[in-house]
């Protein structure tokens, strides 16, 4: 398992480790099953096209889950995710990679917790930020 991240290890402006995803249409079926979101635009080509879409598209919430993973991968088992904000600004299709990225915006202590706020996003293979968001986590300290 990855080393635990501590509050002292974090500096404002630092980049989070990048999370790469390679969604397939099969993954969209798996996600539909696991989440209960069976909206056909995610796995039925004809249905998607009849709804004005270019192709089957990724569930927004699947992209949101990847931003969640970006954070939980980074903070380790002793960190806690407190807030996760995700916006689905662009349509993304399976068969092309997506990259979860983040930057530390602010580091502060409040009500006895040591908190870090990050700007996070998913980029498509052309570098377009289709899924912007933010997160707040609490981290343990070394002492």
């Amino acid at each position: 398992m990855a080393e635990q991240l501590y509050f002292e290890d974090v500096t404002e402006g630092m980049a989070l480790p990048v999370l790469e995803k390679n969604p397939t249409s099969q993954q969209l079926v798996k996600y539909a099953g696991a989440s209960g979101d069976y909206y056909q635009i995610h796995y039925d080509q004809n249905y998607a096209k009849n709804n004005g879409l270019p192709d089957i598209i990724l569930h927004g919430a699947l992209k949101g889950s990847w931003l969640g993973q970006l954070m939980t991968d980074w903070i380790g088992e002793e960190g806690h995710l407190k807030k996760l904000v995700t916006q689905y600004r662009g349509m993304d299709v399976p068969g092309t990679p997506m990259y979860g990225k983040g930057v530390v915006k602010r580091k502060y202590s409040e009500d006895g917790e040591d908190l870090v706020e990050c700007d996070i996003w998913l980029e498509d293979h052309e570098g377009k930020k289709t899924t912007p968001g933010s997160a707040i986590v609490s981290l343990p300290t070394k002492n």
Partner: protein
Amino acid sequence: MTGESVISDDMRAVVGVESDPITYEVEKGAIVKFAQAIGDNNPIFNNEEAARDSAYGGIIAPPTFMRSLISNPVPDFNNPYNAVVDGGSEWEYYEPVRPGDRITVRTKIADLFERPGRLGNMLFTIRETSYTNQFEKIVALQRTTGISYEPPE
């Protein structure tokens, strides 16, 4: 823009009305299936032995797992549009969710407004959903934006 609002009085009357609560028992298999579906191999979401040695003492659900705990519908809300797109979510997390937890889900429409957009008139539905465990503690809150429109012919 025709200038006519698609938001009827009946629709406005539903803002703030809570759905009938629904309670789910969280299953370990469902947690692992969800983690695998999103492609997250973190042992705390997948492996009981590894998770037992962790700070959590056992498997916990990934943060967006609660998407799979679907609320009852908001009563009497009739969307005039046929296509709906998920505009985004804001989650606040308070407690971990573990196998065996009984999570009660309640939702309500917090706001309703419309805007012209690329797809024509767009209806925005802001929902607030709460997730409460068997100890009556709120484990999470989710605020979601749904964007509805009439699909093109």
